[in-house]
């Protein structure tokens, strides 16, 4: 046994540890072939890519020494999406009918549809969560989710109105309430999760940030109207920078603190989750993302410049070339433009996935552990089965839900 073997044994997760062994490079190695395969499959490969991605995340996340398993299949996603598209056929009809109405009706109609879709997004989110949980296996047992997706959608909808009406003050209540509803309806095998927190779990970090912004606003208000001309002009000049900086820092702070506090209030039997995500690791992911994005954009810029100069040369040798002909580029130029567009979209997606999404998952896993994990050994199998496919497809169509 070598020293590195010894180290590995010592580092191997001990009781209650959560571990994520995936890396951005491995994820990129999985995503890039997927993006390429989307071209011959007219985009349909995305369902397989998402499935592989989930298998990657699940299988490389181990809890108390045993990894998760994602048991869903790509065909389920494909059929779920096809079902969801059926819903959009009448909506397309509605758009068509609306476009023949007068201007005010169009605005009212679009607003109505937007509100309807927002409501539906809540339903889809809950069903999609159920889809994923019932397809997650740990130690031979699957997770389950009860509760009613319409109930969840209604809560989310009316809480959202309240949050708007109270200028955001109701947000901690909404977040905690929805979190509680979802997790108090979640099972591992036959054992139920329980959320032991309250609105304060979200409220403590949230109101700190809220108070900070209120204080800043008041200060600038005073500076603008009460103090001398020079001071107020300096204040007004710095206000946008300060507010932007404040928003940036506080968004990382909230993104780290709120989930950490919420998940740390989860309990299942005697086992208890504890999560401490650090804001600075999230900032680091975004900095990395920005650097890579810059590199990628420079690369794209060079390719485009080469293409344009080549195109210019071929046009220069072509007498009758004018804007009209340029506007009527042939099939291959359009194909090239589409490919270029897709490549840029894929690059954005790739970087966002490997740096931001994976980084977040990594940060959560690294700083999470389960206390009294041995209690989980007494869980027995529940009687739940995999949930129907429709919810996930709807969430997919509405672009809600991550991972």
């Amino acid at each position, binding site marked *: 046994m070598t020293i590195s073997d010894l180290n590995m044994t010592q580092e191997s997760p001990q009781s209650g540890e959560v571990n994520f062994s995936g890396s951005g490079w491995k994820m990129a190695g999985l995503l890039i072939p997927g993006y390429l395969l989307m071209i011959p499959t007219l*985009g349909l490969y995305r369902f397989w890519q998402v499935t592989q991605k989930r298998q990657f995340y699940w299988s490389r996340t181990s809890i108390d020494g045993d990894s998760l398993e994602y048991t869903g299949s790509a065909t389920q996603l494909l059929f779920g999406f096809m079902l969801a598209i059926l819903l959009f056929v009448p909506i397309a009809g509605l758009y068509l009918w609306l476009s023949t109405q007068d201007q005010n009706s169009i605005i009212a109609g679009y607003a109505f549809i937007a509100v309807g879709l927002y409501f539906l997004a809540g339903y889809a989110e809950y069903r999609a969560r159920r889809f994923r949980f019932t397809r997650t296996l740990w130690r031979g047992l699957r997770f389950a989710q009860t509760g009613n997706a319409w109930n969840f959608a209604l809560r989310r909808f009316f809480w959202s109105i309240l949050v708007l009406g109270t200028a955001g003050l109701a947000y901690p209540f909404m977040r905690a309430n929805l979190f509680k509803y979802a997790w108090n309806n979640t099972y591992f095998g036959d054992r139920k999760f329980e959320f032991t927190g309250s609105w304060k779990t979200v409220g403590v970090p949230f109101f700190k940030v809220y108070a900070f912004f209120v204080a800043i606003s008041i200060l600038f208000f005073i500076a603008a109207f009460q103090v001398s001309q020079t001071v107020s002009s300096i204040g007004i000049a710095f206000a946008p920078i300060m507010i932007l900086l404040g928003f940036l820092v506080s968004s990382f702070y909230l993104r780290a603190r709120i989930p950490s506090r919420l998940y740390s209030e989860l309990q299942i039997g005697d086992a208890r989750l504890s999560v401490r995500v650090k804001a600075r690791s999230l900032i680091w992911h975004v900095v990395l993302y920005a650097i890579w994005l810059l590199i990628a954009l420079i690369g794209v810029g060079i390719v485009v410049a080469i293409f344009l100069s080549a195109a210019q040369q071929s046009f220069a040798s072509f007498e009758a070339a004018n804007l009209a002909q340029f506007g009527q580029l042939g099939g291959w130029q359009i194909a090239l433009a589409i490919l270029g*567009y897709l490549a840029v979209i894929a690059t954005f997606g790739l970087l966002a996935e490997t740096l931001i999404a994976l980084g977040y998952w990594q940060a959560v896993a690294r700083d999470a552990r389960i206390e009294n994990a041995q209690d989980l050994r007494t869980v027995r199998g529940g009687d739940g089965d995999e949930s129907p496919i429709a919810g996930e497809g709807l969430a997919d169509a509405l672009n809600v839900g991550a991972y």
Partner: protein
Amino acid sequence: MDIQARYFDGDSALPVQATISLDNRSHSGLLAITDVGRGREVAHWPIAQVQQFSFQKHELRVGCETAKPGARLVITEQEDIRNFLNAVPELNAHRRRHNGKQFQTIAVATAALSCVIAAYIFGVPLFARQIVSAIPIEAEVAFGKRVVTQVENALGGGGPLQDCDTNSRSVANLAIERFSQDVLEQSGSSFPVTVSVVQSEIPNAFALPGGQVYYFSALLELTNSPDEFASVLAHEIGHVVNRHGMEQLVSSSGTGLLVSFILGDATGLSAGAIVGAALIDTRFSRDAELEADAFSLLASQSINYDAAALPNLLDRLGGDDEAMAAFALLSTHPMNDERRERLQHDIEHSASILPAFSQDEWRAIKTMCGASFAPSKQK
């Protein structure tokens, strides 16, 4: 051959540290799973029923068709994985079958989607026509009135577009009306067409659903002969009679749905969805242009003026880069050689053709937007 594995029976969450050994008690072979801690066999799986889950390199997960659905053996050491795959060669066949099935599904789905796209691109113009023919003309006219308000607000900078000649009994307006009625009559259509010559710096002419046709003053300035003017007008009336505006409306909402499906964004708000839909719709509008050209040609033969004038105007517009840029961006008229050739090819030169408007009428039309009149020399 003893292989180390984690065993889960699918019934309780208790992990079992196990060794797997091959047992030849039955013909097809069994996997004997032994609990290391308790030193006794906890399960035996017939090799033929062993299934592989999760195709990852760093761990091999297998289950058994006859065991609980969640029952798993998880092998993580590379050497153990190799040994296991050697002991259970059926897994390779199983994996091949699984991959083959996935490939088949992707192939079938892609083929189906290709068929849908092809059926869409070739079928929607027909389908849209069917839908539009079910819409009563009165409904289109009512809709057209709302579109007119919207378009005039958008193009006229908030207010309605300014008519060049507000007197509906003027020589120019009467001549235009007479010509429009002649064109409509020969086509047998009862569509109420209104032609407005309006002030605009954009060289353009277009038709809206419901029968409103616009001819912009900048295009009128570029128009050199009464027959050019007549050809463009007949072309636009062709759009009205064929109800292209409504067809476009129907087909573009279908396009949105299709592109949404391909891109997986049903809200249709991404740049890709918008550009993709525009690309497909361009095809439909090109078909519509050719149809309107054919209508214009038919009108010229029936009324007996020179339809070769339209290609002349197209050529002149095509030669003028600046005008062309604005034209190409704003109009629904994609200029192309194919279209020009087709027009020139179809024109039968008859000896007895007369201009569509008399010299006095044409002078009145040409000057209705305030331009001076310099009669151009005809070939």
